[in-house]
């Protein structure tokens, strides 16, 4: 009887050890099974344990599954929570790539990261407004980070970055137009368009927008109600306005050279008119007739 008891205990112990060993090697797969069963929170709990386990966290698979499960978790969360979850997902996929020098799973990592990148980019677009532009900038930076990992020389990213900066520039212009004491917003708008020119110096839209913004700033100086009521301020205001008109000129001339349209010709006419340069004013006034 005593022997039987001993044998029984031994069998139980061996079973426990065997199960424990199996559980250790299979937890990443378990996490996926739990997710497949519809229990995303359970899957997260398991995969979080896996990535902390030194016997597992040196393989790309574990990190890939973490990225995948977190990507799925984000779909079920509120926008605010989902953002951080997607960041964690991205970091996991990034780690998976690092642990996969033979690039066995690079295509799948890339596809998942691309999906996250698109999500970050779409969210950045949705947040591009006067109140949440700072979050838009943050989200767009994650888009860039994602793309830098999977395709660092992708020309489409530069294109998208220019589009984003142009849209962000218009947000800052809107802020400044609503409150012309917001000099910071004006400077930010100029900064965005200038950064586009660092990527593509002959970008017609950025050149045009810089010209428009400097010109409009000059006009705003002259139109200041304080100036209207006090003739003694007009001279100084005129000087300040001329500085802005002159800043606008090179950008509009470049836009004229590389992609003139009616608004560019109109801008040049306005600037030369404002600068009282009658011959050039007449030249562009005449050219403007062609657009009628």
């Amino acid at each position, binding site marked *: 009887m005593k022997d039987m008891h001993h044998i029984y205990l031994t069998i139980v112990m061996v079973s426990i050890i065997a199960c424990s060993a199996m559980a250790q090697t299979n937890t990443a*797969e378990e996490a*996926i099974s739990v997710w*497949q069963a519809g229990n995303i929170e359970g899957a997260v709990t398991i995969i979080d344990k896996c990535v902390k386990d030194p016997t597992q966290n040196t393989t790309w698979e574990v990190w*890939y599954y973490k990225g*995948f499960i977190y*990507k799925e978790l984000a*779909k079920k969360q509120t926008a605010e929570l989902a953002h951080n979850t997607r960041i964690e997902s991205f970091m996991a996929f990034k780690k998976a790539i690092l642990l996969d020098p033979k690039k066995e*799973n690079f295509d*799948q990592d890339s*596809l*998942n990261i691309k*999906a996250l990148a*698109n*999500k970050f*980019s*779409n969210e*950045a*677009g*949705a947040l*591009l407004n006067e109140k949440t532009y700072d979050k838009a900038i943050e989200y767009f930076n994650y888009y860039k980070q994602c793309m830098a990992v999977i395709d660092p020389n992708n020309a489409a990213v530069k294109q998208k970055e220019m*589009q*984003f900066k*142009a*849209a962000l*520039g*218009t947000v800052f*212009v*809107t802020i400044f137009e609503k409150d012309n004491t917001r000099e910071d917003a004006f400077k930010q708008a100029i900064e965005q368009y200038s950064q586009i020119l660092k990527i593509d110096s002959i970008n017609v839209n950025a050149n045009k*927008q810089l010209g*428009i*913004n400097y*010109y*409009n700033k*000059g*006009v*705003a100086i*002259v*139109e200041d109600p304080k*100036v*209207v*009521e*006090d*003739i*003694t301020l*007009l*001279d100084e205001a*005129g*000087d300040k*306005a*001329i500085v802005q008109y002159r800043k606008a000129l090179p950008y509009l001339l470049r836009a004229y050279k590389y992609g003139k349209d009616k*608004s560019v010709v*109109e*801008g040049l*006419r*306005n600037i030369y*008119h*404002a*600068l*009282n*340069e009658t011959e050039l004013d007449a030249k562009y006034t005449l050219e403007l007739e062609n657009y009628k």
Partner: protein
Amino acid sequence: MRKLIFILTLISTMAFSPSTFYFAPPDPSARVKAVFIYNFSKYVEWKEANRAGAFTIGVLGTSSVINELTTITTGKSVGSQKIEIKAFATLADVKKCHILFVPADNATPIPSIITKIKGNNTLLVTEKDGYVKQGAIINFVIQSNKQKFELSKNNAEKASLKVSQSLVTLSIPVD
């Protein structure tokens, strides 16, 4: 396990759409002239008889200054006189006004204008070289790309107008 790897969500990419901004109304020079003309009313004294009723600023011919003047003087007065902006198509249409502005592209000879407004106590403002010598009181000129104005105290006196020293200081005196 591998098949799970291929489960992906396809997300379409949204394009960023910047708004387009346009140039502010095209004529800041007209605004500057309008601001000058409006402010002249604060530095010039008209005869007692002309300090009642509306304060009239007339413009001979067409000019973007008319719109700018209308914009900046809406709801404003000179003393107790409400400002009115009037556009006169031709010299024949010109009625008595406190200030008459003649734009550069108006071809009406200056002596005819002076004859027309003689005795009306009108501040004649022009913008052509040499017009002050022909009888205008104030004439807009460009110096270093900037709008300035010449002022003839003698011509002002002939029109029975008193010009303040502050305005003389801001001007390019011609006599």
